[in-house]
């Protein structure tokens, strides 16, 4: 008896859900609040909540590169953010990633406080803020104080390559689409040494999936390094603290010893790991 009532109830719910589903011709209801000029309102302080900065691929937990830091600074397991799980490296590029990983203490640009580039800045474990202007949209990243201002007008061309690239944006329905070019070859995708060349071209999409969450997609194209285009995607979450704000992580002073310590007059004694 009870079972059949449940069944009827479930059928009713199914019918009901069919009734409220938008017909294909209708645009899906907006998930984002709107600005006063009718654009999806992406203003806010956002942060990824995943393990992509350690390795964008699926990975089990593993020991960190500095044994003395033990469990506190080892790598948490992560399901990965690469669609399909695998990065389509050319064979020699895959070998370079492995070498990068081996030498990561020496090579990882994050250790040196270099700006994270795109897309890595989006999912480093620090918040970033979107200040949505009318002709421009500012992205301010806490890590290294990196910033880029997205041009929403007629696309312009970069004068030179840079760490944060050259961003031209436009709206496609509910999505902010940003075309990022002229990125230099000095940033990585993560701490695992996943890398790209200066031929990198990133197309980003930011789409609200609720008032406090965005879906982030980055299409990666770099014919020097990969056999085909590939895509990463992840949700980004709004920092809901009432007093949330971007603080300073001007990390130069934390990287000076690792970069210039060997050039000191008096070596620092008994501080940190000498390796």
């Amino acid at each position: 008896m009870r079972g059949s009532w449940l069944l009827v109830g479930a059928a009713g719910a199914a019918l009901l859900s069919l009734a409220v589903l938008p017909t294909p011709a209708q645009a899906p209801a907006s998930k984002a609040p709107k600005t006063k000029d009718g654009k999806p309102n992406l203003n806010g302080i956002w942060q990824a909540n995943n393990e992509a900065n350690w390795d964008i691929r699926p990975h089990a937990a593993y020991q960190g590169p500095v044994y003395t830091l033990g469990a506190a600074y080892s790598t948490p397991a992560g399901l990965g953010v690469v669609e399909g799980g695998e990065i389509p490296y050319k064979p020699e590029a895959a070998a370079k990633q492995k070498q990068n990983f081996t030498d990561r203490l020496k090579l990882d640009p994050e250790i040196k406080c270099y700006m994270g580039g795109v897309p890595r800045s989006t999912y480093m474990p620090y918040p970033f803020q979107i200040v949505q202007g009318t002709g421009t949209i500012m992205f301010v990243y806490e890590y290294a104080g990196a910033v880029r201002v997205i041009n929403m007008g007629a696309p312009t061309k970069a004068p030179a390559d840079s760490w944060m690239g050259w961003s031209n944006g436009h709206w496609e329905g509910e999505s902010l689409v940003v075309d990022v070019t002229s990125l230099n070859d000095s940033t990585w995708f993560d701490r695992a040494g996943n890398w790209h060349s200066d031929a990198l071209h990133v197309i980003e999409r930011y789409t609200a999936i609720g008032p406090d969450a965005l879906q982030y997609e980055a299409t990666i194209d770099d014919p020097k390094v990969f056999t085909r285009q590939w895509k990463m995607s992840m949700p980004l979450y709004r920092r809901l603290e009432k007093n949330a704000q971007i603080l300073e992580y001007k990390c130069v002073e934390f990287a000076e010893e690792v970069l210039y310590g060997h050039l000191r007059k008096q070596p620092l004694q008994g501080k940190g790991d000498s390796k």
Partner: protein
Amino acid sequence: MRRYVLSSLIALAVVSLMSAPVFAQTPVTAKPAPAAKAWTMPRTPDGKPDLQGVYSNATTVPVARPAYLGAKEFYTDEADKVASAAQASAGRGGGRAAAPRPAAAADPEGNGLAVHYDTSQFGLGGPTVKRAASLRTSIITGPEGRVPAMLPEVQKLVAEKRAYQQAHQWESAQNRPLAERCITWGFEGPPMMPVGYNSTLEIVQGQGYVGIVQEMIHDTRVIPTDGRPHGPSEIKRWMGDSVGHWEGDTLVVETVNYNPLVVVQGAPLSDAAKVTERFTRIDADTITYQFTVDDPKTWVKPFSGEYNMVHIDGGLYEYACHEGNYGMANNLSGARATEKK
């Protein structure tokens, strides 16, 4: 370039007709030139004055007024400016010290940054840079026109610090000045001051926030205007802790909680420092920027300043200071090599 110089001279002439002395921190009201087309304040979708765009805050107005000008706060016109400088120069036998020095000569840490590069060599100085017209004799306002004296104990501290720095300057990266370390440039403030080159900034306004990125070392301020209080005083910051609000059409920003290593006009700021800035758009191309620095533990009295920033067409480029800091390693390895000789 020549065409631009000409048009800026015309602009100067127009402004000189309409400009009246404005005292420190008096509210600025937008006054279009009578001859110009009626200008109305552009507004953002949520009704605030629209300050957005790329601006140059380069100026030839010096921070401190040349002593020979006394209490004269404004030149009467462009000819007066030229004549005053020539007169002073002749009176002192043509000495270089008599000529008005550009604000770029401000050298907060005494480390010779003003001559770091020959900016004309890179097309970054002189007529290649757009500047807002000004008949001010100094950025610092008021009859004295200069930063007041530091308290005696602060003067002593600054002298000691400088002597220590000079004696140990090549020992490690941490002994180098903040600008050379790419931590702060010393001009991003607040108060934001003109820089020797790349004196450009971009303003973006989102709901409840005003973002300002300054080209020099990409320092970015995100100023909340949603009525929140300052953050905890435990969190000291290189650019301070700014909150803003609108007073009529003027954006007013108050900043506290400075990192004690921050230097403004040659003096370290204390935990009592408070800087107030006022941004007022006065026409299609110009924002008047006013500031008051109040730090009773550093200077004998507060001081105020004012300059105009002018809209420019160009975008900002990335100034990756730290990432390209080859000079740091080269200088230190040079010092180590010298010691071995």
